[in-house]
C-alpha cells in the first residue's frame, strides 16, 4: 500500500506548535508546509506563556498518514520544541474578525440588531459604514459574514483559528 498523499481521506486537523522565537522560524515553518505540498487552511502565531517561545495554531487538511508526516516534519525543524494535535481534544477554538459593512441611516438599525444577536460589537461608525468585531467559532463568524453580505461588505479581515485545550493540560506540557 502506498502512503502517497491521499487527499480523498482528508479532514481538518488543528495543531498547536511551540517554537523558539528566533528570526526566520515562522518562514521556516510555512516554507516547509509549502515545499512538502501540505495543505494549510490557516496559520496564526503569537507569544506563548513562556518567554522566547512562540505558539502557532495551524489548521491543515490531511489524512492520518499525511498528518503523521506533518508532525514529524515539524519536529525536524531545529527550533520547533513541541507539536500537539488537538483535533480530537476538548478545546476552546476561537477566531476574531473585523467586518466593515456598508451602512446608511436606513440600514443601521437592522445591522445593529443582527450584531446583537451574534453578541458581536460595533466598534466604529462612519457616515456610510459600520465596523463590527466578532469573536467566536469559525462557524459563527461565517454565519455573521453571510448575514451581513447583502448589505455590502467593504472590508473583511479574519485572524484564523487559535485554540487551547480545556482544563489542566497545557499543549506543551505532555509527553
Amino acid at each position, binding site marked *: *500500500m*502506498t*502512503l*502517497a498523499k491521499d487527499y480523498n481521506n482528508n479532514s481538518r486537523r488543528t495543531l498547536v506548535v511551540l*517554537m*523558539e522565537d*528566533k*528570526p*526566520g522560524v515562522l*518562514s*521556516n515553518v510555512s*516554507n*516547509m508546509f509549502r*515545499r512538502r505540498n501540505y495543505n494549510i487552511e490557516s496559520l496564526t502565531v503569537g507569544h506563548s506563556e513562556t518567554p522566547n517561545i512562540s505558539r502557532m495554531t495551524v489548521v491543515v487538511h490531511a489524512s492520518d*498518514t499525511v498528518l*503523521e*508526516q506533518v508532525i*514529524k*516534519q515539524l*519536529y*525536524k*525543524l*531545529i*527550533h*520547533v*520544541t513541541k507539536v500537539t494535535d488537538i483535533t480530537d481534544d476538548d478545546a476552546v477554538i476561537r477566531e476574531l474578525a473585523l467586518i466593515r459593512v456598508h451602512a446608511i441611516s436606513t440600514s443601521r438599525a437592522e445591522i445593529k440588531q443582527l450584531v446583537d444577536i451574534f453578541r458581536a460589537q460595533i466598534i466604529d461608525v462612519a457616515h456610510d459604514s459600520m465596523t463590527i468585531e466578532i469573536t467566536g467559532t469559525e462557524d459563527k463568524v461565517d454565519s455573521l459574514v453571510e448575514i451581513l453580505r447583502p448589505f455590502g461588505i467593504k472590508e473583511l479581515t479574519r485572524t484564523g483559528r487559535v485554540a487551547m485545550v480545556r482544563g489542566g493540560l497545557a499543549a506543551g506540557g505532555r509527553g
Partner: protein
Amino acid sequence: MKMNGAQIIWECLVREGVEIVFGITGGKVIPLYHELPAYPIHHITMRHEQAAAHAADGYARATGKVGVCIATSGPGATNLVTGLANAQMDSSPIVAITGQVASGDLGTDAFQEVDITGITMPITKHNCLITNVTELAQAIREAFHIARTGHPGAVLLDVTVDAQMGQCEFVYPEAVNLPGYKPHTRGNLRQVAQAAEMINQAKRPVLMVGRGVIVAHAQDELVELAEKAQIPVSTTLLGKSAIPESHPLSLGMGGMHGESYTNLAVQQADLIIGIGTRFDDRFTSAAHTFAPQAKIIHIDIDPAEIAKRVRVDLPIVGDALNVLRELVPLVKEAGHAEWIEIIDGWRSESHEHSRHWEEGEVLVPQYVVRSISELTQGDALMVSDVGQNQMWEAQYYIHNRFGGLISSGGLGTMGFALPASIGAQAGCPECTVWVVAGDGGLQMTIQELATIVQERLPIKIALLNNGYLGMVRQWQEFFFERNYCGTPILGPDFAKVAEAYGMAGITVCEKAQVGVALERAMQIDGPVLIDFRIEQEHNVFPMVPAGRPIDEMIRRPKQV
C-alpha cells in the same frame, strides 16, 4: 581574550577539529581570509563555489568529519546552492560559511547582497544570519553539532562583514542550547526485541542497507547480523561499500539498475530489514509495488523517514550502530539454505547475460570499470558522477573498502565527482582515489582540474566518453522514439585539456589498450585523466521502467 569575528571563526573551526577548508574569497570575506594564515588550517582554493561545496561534501564522506566550505556574499553564496542541496539530500555533514554585506546595508539590495539564508532554508538542515560578533562562537558550535549529529546534513552560517571585524571577548561555548533538537539515537528495546522475533521467524529475509550504516560505522555489526542469521544483503546506491561486495551474502545494489537477482530477492522476500535508508524511489520504484510479500522493519535515526514512502510494519528510531548492537544478540542463528540457494540460482542465471562484453572486441564501459576494480582489488576510494557512468561504476566495481564509494545519490548532481574527489583525496591522502565520470558531467566542473594540479592531488580520472548525455539518450531510445533531442554533445580532446592544465592525459580507443593505460595511470605519481572513447550508444542494463515493480526489469541482452 579579545578577538575579532574572523579570529573567532577560525578559533572555533580549529576547536571543531577542522584541518582543511574549501573556498573562494571575495569582497565580503576578506576580513575572514586576512586572519587565516595564523591558524593551522589548510585552505584549498577552488575555481567555483559549487565545487567548494562538493569538495567539502566529498571530504565529509571520505573522512566522516564535517566538511567546511567558504564563499563570499551574493553570487559566491548562490553558487553554493547546488552543493548544499546535494549534501543535504545525501546526509553529508557540511558547514558553509558565507560573507554578507554589513548589517546596516541588509535589505537595501546592496552590491553583492543576496538573502542566502532565505534561499537555502529548504535545502539546509539549519541556517542562520549572524550580524553581531558576540553571537558567532555559539552559532558555530551549534552549526557543527547540528551538521554531524542525528540525521547529518548541511548547515549554512551567513556572517555580515561587520560581525567578522567587530571585537569581543572570546569564550568557547561549553554547551549547545538547542531545546528543540534532540536526536533519538537509542532504539526502543521493546521494538528491537520485536524485530528480532520477526527476523527469527522469517523464511526469506533480505537486508536493505543505506548510507546510514556507513555514517554510523556499523559495518561489523551489519556483517555479524547477516552471517549469524544468513540474511542476504542488498544495498541502495549510497549503501554500497557498507558490506564488502565480495562477501557471499552481498547482493549488491537493488532498484532501477539493480541486478536481477537482487531485485527478485527483494520482491520475493517475506521480510525486508531496512537500515539507514529512506526507501528512495530509485530503489523501490512505485511504493505500492515494492516487496509485496514482505513485512518491513525500518531502522533509521530520523523519525520523519519512517513510513514517508512505504508502509512499515515495525519502525525503530535510532542510530544504526546502537540498534544493531542491541539486535544482534537477540537474533537466533539460522541457515536459510533453501532461500539462499534460490537466490544463487538467479545469480548464476544473471551471469549468463554478462558474457558478451567480456568476450567481445568493442570498448565497453563495463570492461573499463571491471578492469579498474581488478587493478585496485576493490580497495580504491571511488568517486562517481551521475548518469550511465554512475550505474556502470555501481554495477561493475566490486567495492571491498568500507565507505569506498562516494556518489551523488539523492540530488543526482552532474559535475559532482571531480570536485568531490578533491575533498576525498585531500581528506585521505593515503588512499587511491579514482573518479568515474561521463563527458557531460565532467564538463560541468572541469575547471577543477586546475585545483587538482595546484594541490598536487594524485587523482586518477576515468572518463567514460560517449559523446552523449547518455542516460537521457537511453531513455529517449527506449521511451521517446529515439528522438535524440538535446543529448549529443561535442567534447574537446580531453587528454589535451588535461595536459593544458598540467596533468597527464591518455586517450584509449580500443579494448586492448585499457590494461596498459590503467597500469600507466597507476605508475604516474600525480593526477591522470584517461579519456575512454566507449561505444556511443551503450545502455545500462538491467533497467526497470518508471513505475514498474523492480522485478519487471529489461534484462541485459544475451548477445549483441
